[in-house]
């Protein structure tokens, strides 16, 4: 189904609103392909089509939501009835409600590319097979591949509401990944390389292969390091992870509900003066770019930290009304979930230097390959940060021995203040984050 057909379905439900009701309907249709290869053969090939509807109803400020994985007329009917029934049991809030158009003009950004539909199935399979072949051939120490995969999708989305909002979107995406294995005594090291783009022709297979192979073989012989205080050197992928965790605590919802360690700190220096970041979905170079947010408002740049000073928070329409600032166009959602404030396209302002220069400037540090256990090791309320790590030690400006089975610990608050360098090597990552490399000083490394 195309976005206009979805919008027609959504619009028909919206028309059913009673005088005391607000209704918002999201519909989506996704077609996707995924291929996994193993040992030079196609292990599985999936072709999939997903339909979804989500209906949000507010009756006198009380909110109910219902969703379903089908757009059949009887299912749509039941979903509306269920959302209305749910609204009867929630409690009213003067700030609750669907978004109202706020006059901000949406930037036209096309998220659709022809390649997903134009590429023959056999060529898509060949991408995964080729990745496996190239990784196996790249280095004698690669002993196997756990998974090589290619996936793509075409997604259509439409949103309509009783406040007159109508937004549609048609986007494509493609990704490829590989996990090589290298035997290492009685254990193995596993690496990971991936890339994502709007068009399969824009996938950088060289990058995937290089990264996957180096991240595997460069860990061979890794041992547990001694505990120490170290500088962390983070390439753009890992910088994105750390800054992403911090940015998540700047959600208007967390702030209003007393769950952000940065709640009362607007206007204060919360980070190194080198640090500036914002959410900028209007930058077409970012893979997180979008013209509309999950409530149909125009996406816009949202400054968060400038020269180390906290500028503000990101909001959806509810948290924007309640905090008095208005929505920042930051609602994120799938058709089957309620919208809430989120980050679309986090962007860190580049400064100077690159990874090589950073390594050369560190006396005792870790060049980080992976940070593990983020979901259990980072507490976004208290800010406590303690995660598993692997990588290479840096000694006197040189990359030294591989390490694993260790943790790095600090707090999210400290990490921002301890940023010592921000690179000029801005990278637009497939996750939608755009960031250069970073150095963070004074982090506790726990090992033996």
């Amino acid at each position, binding site marked *: 189904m195309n976005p206009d057909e979805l919008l027609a379905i959504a619009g028909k439900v919206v028309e059913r609103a009673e005088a005391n009701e607000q209704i918002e309907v999201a519909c989506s249709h996704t077609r996707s392909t995924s291929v996994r290869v*193993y*040992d030079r*053969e196609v*292990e*599985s*090939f*999936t*072709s999939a*089509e*997903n339909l979804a509807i989500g209906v949000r109803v507010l009756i006198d400020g009380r909110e*109910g*939501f*219902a969703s*379903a*994985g*089908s757009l059949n007329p009887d299912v749509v009917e039941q979903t509306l009835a*269920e*959302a209305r029934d*749910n609204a*009867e*049991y*929630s*409690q009213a809030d003067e700030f609750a409600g669907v978004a109202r158009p706020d006059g901000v003009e949406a930037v036209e950004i096309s998220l659709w590319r022809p390649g997903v539909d134009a590429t023959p199935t056999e060529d898509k399979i060949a991408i995964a097979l080729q990745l496996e072949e190239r990784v196996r051939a790249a280095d004698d120490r690669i002993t*196997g591949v*756990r*998974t090589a995969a290619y996936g793509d999708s075409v997604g259509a989305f439409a949103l309509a509401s009783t406040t007159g909002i109508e937004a549609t979107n048609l986007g494509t995406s493609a990704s490829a990944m590989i996990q090589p*294995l290298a035997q290492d005594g009685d*254990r*193995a*090291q*596993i690496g990971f390389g991936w890339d994502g783009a709007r068009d399969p022709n824009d996938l950088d297979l060289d990058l995937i292969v290089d990264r996957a192979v180096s991240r595997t073989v460069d860990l061979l012989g*890794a041992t547990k390091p001694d*505990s120490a205080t170290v500088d962390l050197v983070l390439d753009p992928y890992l910088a994105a992870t750390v800054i992403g965790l911090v940015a998540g605590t700047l959600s208007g919802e967390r702030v*209003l*509900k*007393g*769950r952000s*360690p940065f709640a009362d700190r607007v206007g204060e220096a919360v980070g190194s003066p080198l640090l500036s970041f914002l959410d900028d979905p209007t930058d077409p170079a970012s893979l997180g770019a979008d013209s509309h947010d999950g409530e149909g408002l125009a996406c816009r740049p949202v400054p968060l930290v400038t020269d180390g000073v906290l500028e503000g928070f990101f909001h959806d329409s509810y948290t924007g009304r309640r905090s008095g600032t208005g929505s920042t166009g930051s609602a994120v959602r799938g058709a089957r979930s*309620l919208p809430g404030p989120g980050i679309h396209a986090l962007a860190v302002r580049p400064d100077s230097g690159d990874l090589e220069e950073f390594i050369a400037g560190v006396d005792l540090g870790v060049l980080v390959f992976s940070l*593990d*256990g983020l*979901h*259990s*090791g980072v*507490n976004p*309320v*208290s*800010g*406590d940060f*303690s*995660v*598993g790590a692997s990588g290479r030690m840096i000694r006197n400006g040189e990359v030294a021995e591989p390490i694993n*089975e*260790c*943790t790095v*610990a600090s707090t999210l608050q400290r990490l921002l203040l301890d940023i010592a360098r921000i690179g000029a090597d801005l990278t637009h990552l497939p996750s939608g984050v755009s960031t250069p490399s970073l150095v963070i000083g004074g982090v*506790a490394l*726990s*090992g*033996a």
Partner: protein
Amino acid sequence: MTSVDPLLETDLVERVLSVALDRGADFAEVFAEDVERSSALLDDGRIESLSSDRDRGVGIRVVAGQSTGFAHTSNLSEHGLIAAAQAAAAAARGPGDGATRTVDFGADRPSVEAAAIRIRPGEIDKGTKVGLLMQANEAARATDAAISQVSARYGDNRRRILVANSDGVLAGDDQSRTLFSVGCVASGDTGLQTGYETIGLSIGFELFDRYDVEELARKAARRALTKLEARPAPSGTLPVVIGPGSGGVLFHEACGHGLEADLVRKGASTFAGRVGQQVASPLVTLVDDGTMDDEWGRFTIDDEGHPATRNVLIEDGVLVDYMWDGLRARTEGRSSSGNGRRQSYRHLPMVRMTNTYLAPGQSDPDDIIAGVDHGVYVAKLGGGQVNTASGDFTFGMVEAYMIEHGQLTSPIRDGQLIGNGPQALLDIEAVGNDFAMGSPGTCGKDGQGVPVGDGVPTLMVKALTIGGTAS
């Protein structure tokens, strides 16, 4: 055995399987699913919203040689199912055995042995569910003035499945789960701290006859309050005593994933080729049991139609067997262990855990703590993660205390515990004679989440690395 209406008529299933097989595949399967979920959320002192979700569909899998083709649809008409069967058959790329075959279930209807659900959540007034949330909120806030924020969530789901395949399997299951969780924030001079508690079982609304939501809320509140007084976690390698219940996460990560046959086969597990060997301390007997009454990871049949099974994985430290799904078992010429599970009809099944637990031992839990001079006692663990290839795992401490001279002393802040699975199993020096199941969990693997349970008695590991900031 309860008779319920099957999701698809048997003769329709036969026709769809015939289409799936008509390119000469080795195996074909129809998996139909109908899931109803409902939830209610209280946050910031108010019932914020109630949500419901309905999802029905069919996934069709066709295996030819080593290659699997898969397609799914939410269009349950004969036309929709046949189209999906054709897509799956075309997608299976390996050389099948070329034989054409038909599937005939005769006059059978699938048997569905549903768990005994006493009170269907769908029959309970939504106002009653909302009332539980408000009770929990009030109880948590009444615990102490420092409790500055409370959220509580109620959720239930009913999942009906039907599995039919070209080996003649025709079976169904009717699974229900009910969940309640409370999260508290405490504010003090040291900043904000959090405490969570969750209960969940594969039963209906009778969950609340067994558990008191107010008590649950007070427990979550006390956990947050305790941490306001906590000092930074130590940094380095220390003996660790893990309390009963949530420590099951240790085994789930330290060896459970490494015993999944799909990872073993690909050389992505440190336990490959080690059946019959001593892989753990002789105190360790580890079981994965999909039959455990009422537990979160329980079911009657797995998502490939195989009956849930109790499987001893490690006995007295010796590796007995891996966990298997149908595809891997087929390749090895053995039977599945009932561990073939999938997130939904949109996903291919793979090897997954169910309820994984360490059998109780002989030691008195107090004696285990008394035997540690300087170490950490973990009362509750959060989630974890493992690299099955290297065996390195991490998991988070969400309630922990120092042990000094055999006594529990000050609480410590959240931090990560890490270790290496094969080493940690050998380093288990004491196993208590107590036992508890932990909180209901969702295990993620290759992008799919499934409900799992785990449990342990009190146990002591000689050395784990604690990822704190205090030297």
